[in-house]
């Protein structure tokens, strides 16, 4: 039954959460169940992606009314290509992170609700990707955040508690803003269902609503989403939180939960707000669609993220701090094509922008989690991840070095790795925007993306030469590399290479996802919010 399939990933996670709690007295069984749960999650997501979106006779999208309450009053879950694409990223990174946690986090710590919280994090992410209801999106954000607060402060030392507290305060403020925005949008449009809201905003006269407040309220929501995504100027929580969280969790935070912020921007702006026409003018925004207001803000924030992240990463002393700064920059690389898509008129350039962002998101999730895992493996082998204490790892642990090398090259964008296609599509979008408008802004975007790419080369090269080449330090000399950890790394590295070589299906999937994000009418028709017409 394709319909029940929509909630299958969520049900799997719920079942694993109960299992994690029940098996707490038996740590060994809990670890096995955790891996089995994340494997089942990956299978469920794979089934959703294949049976609903990808297979030749698939419907392409499906909805599910929770509890049988009809839209727009009940909570709708929607799987379209965009949701399925994001869920796939979450499933791959989640599975890898759980397996890696089992062999990396020490046993006593794993017993302290670690696996439970990890599955709660997955639950929040799954809900956020599936839901078609704006308030429900807020709820899933909270589920995700509750788990990540505890995971950031997991080790419980002074610096972990401080980072966790900063993360908590910032996100509570962000949640308040998001709640205000959701409440305001409800007051403005009279609905919370995304499809219904989209329908009403496209034809405000028929429903007697004034869409002008959407610009301001959307900006509040946008601020929260970019806080979650860690875009400049909301980037300052990122390094502290990533450094204090257990490294597999940091990989998940960078690879998956940041993407939830980007996903929310795309979904809310392109699928819900895009049809609205607002008759107010803001300096710097051309056009009357809420997308026109998003474009300049997101472009500036994305560009600033690329520069801040890249410059910050060059100056770091430890591998994990470098990766944290790098992920600020990489999210900038996702934001810039989204901004280009928002600025472009509906058509191929808009679609290309979103495809570039999605492919880059996939690439970043894979490469960054590989690098975080590699850092974790280095730390458990040598006891340190300070660049000054490392050196000569390449000859001491060649397989580990090879995996780190693949991750770095993918981050730089060397063919045939997935990172190459991500960078390539981002550059193509920037270049096409330049030829379309040939303004100063277009040139500046290309310049920023180029500088960002050069910075990426610089900091990955620096990390590589410092820690893998050169003379072996005492820490490296006495290192014992764990085979089980390296096995996970090799798996991820192989995935990056395979997806890069067989890139065509990924591109098809991303294109379908971008089209799903842009197909506003299709989304409304799919959910079919029949009720509430008389409002």
């Amino acid at each position, binding site marked *: 039954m394709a319909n029940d399939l929509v909630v299958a990933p969520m049900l799997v996670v719920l079942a694993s959460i109960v299992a994690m709690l029940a098996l707490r007295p038996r740590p060994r069984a809990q670890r096995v169940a955790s891996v089995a749960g994340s494997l089942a999650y990956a299978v469920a997501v794979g089934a959703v992606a294949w049976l609903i979106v990808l297979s030749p006779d698939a419907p392409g999208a499906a909805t599910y009314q*929770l*509890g049988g309450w009809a839209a727009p009053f009940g909570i709708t879950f929607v799987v379209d290509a965009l949701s399925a694409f994001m869920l796939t990223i979450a499933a791959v990174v989640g599975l890898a992170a759980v397996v890696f946690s089992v062999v990396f986090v020490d046993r006593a710590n794993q017993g302290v609700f670690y696996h439970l919280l990890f599955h709660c994090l997955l639950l929040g992410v799954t809900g956020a990707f599936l839901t078609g209801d704006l308030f429900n999106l807020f709820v899933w954000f909270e589920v995700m955040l509750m788990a990540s607060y505890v995971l950031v402060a997991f080790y419980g030392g002074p610096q972990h508690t401080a980072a966790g507290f900063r993360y908590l305060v910032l996100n509570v403020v962000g949640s308040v803003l998001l709640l205000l925005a959701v409440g305001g949008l409800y007051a403005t449009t009279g609905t919370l269902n995304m499809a219904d809201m989209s329908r009403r905003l496209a034809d405000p006269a028929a429903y007697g609503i004034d869409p002008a407040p959407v610009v301001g309220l959307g900006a509040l929501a946008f601020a929260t989403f970019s806080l979650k995504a860690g875009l400049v100027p909301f980037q300052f929580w990122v390094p502290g939180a990533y450094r204090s969280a257990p490294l597999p969790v940091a990989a998940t935070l960078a690879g998956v939960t940041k993407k939830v912020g980007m996903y929310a921007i795309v979904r809310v702006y392109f699928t819900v707000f895009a049809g609205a026409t607002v008759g107010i003018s803001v300096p710097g925004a051309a056009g009357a669609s809420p997308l026109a207001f998003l474009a300049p803000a997101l472009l500036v924030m994305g560009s600033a993220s690329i520069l801040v992240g890249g410059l910050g990463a060059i100056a770091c002393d430890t591998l994990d701090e470098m990766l944290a700064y790098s992920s600020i920059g990489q999210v900038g690389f996702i934001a810039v094509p989204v901004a280009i898509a928002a600025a472009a008129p509906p058509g191929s350039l808009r679609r290309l922008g979103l495809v570039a962002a999605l492919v880059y998101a996939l690439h970043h999730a894979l490469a960054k989690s590989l690098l975080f895992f590699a850092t974790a493996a280095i730390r458990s082998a040598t006891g340190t991840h300070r660049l000054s204490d490392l050196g000569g790892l390449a000859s001491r642990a060649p397989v580990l070095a090879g995996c780190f090398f693949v991750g770095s090259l993918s981050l730089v964008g060397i063919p045939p790795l997935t990172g190459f296609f991500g960078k390539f599509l981002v550059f193509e979008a920037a270049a096409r925007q330049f030829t379309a408008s040939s303004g100063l802004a277009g040139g500046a975007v290309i310049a920023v993306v180029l500088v960002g790419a050069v910075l990426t080369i610089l900091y990955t090269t620096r990390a590589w030469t410092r820690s893998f080449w050169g003379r072996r330090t005492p820490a490296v000399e006495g290192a014992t590399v764990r085979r089980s950890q390296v096995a996970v790394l090799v798996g991820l590295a192989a995935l990056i290479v395979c997806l890069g070589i067989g890139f065509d299906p990924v591109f098809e999937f991303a294109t379908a996802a971008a089209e799903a994000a842009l197909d506003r009418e299709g989304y409304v028709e799919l959910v079919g919010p029949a009720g509430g017409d008389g409002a």
Partner: protein
Amino acid sequence: MKTTARIVVPIILVLAISLLLQGHNLPGGGFIAGVLTTVAFALIYVAQGLDYLDSGVLGQEVESGAGVFEHRSVTAFRQTFMVGLAVAVASGFAALLFDEPFLTQTFVIVEHLPLYHELEFASALAFDVGVYMVVVGVLLTILSVVGAE
């Protein structure tokens, strides 16, 4: 203080249970009932001290040196929220068995009962009971563990 607690705690608990039972179509519900129940227990803690539940009610020997996690009441609280979560999730899954969407609820009204005349059995009550147990278990675990520090 102890006298007040002795009188007030049963009243709060009865009120909590009535809120739990009517929650599916009147003001109330599992969450608020759970919070009220926790308040009753908090009152006991304030009036009688942290060890009272173990030593006075359960009749257990409490070693003063042992951590609060060793208390039998704390173990029970943790089991409560685990079972509660399982009940809530299972009540959602139950709908799938009847080929209905996840979390679908229904109700039956049993009429012609002696004394009660009619009673309503709503499946939402199962979910509410799950929520109630989660709230009670989690809040009391936090309260007792943090209270001990």
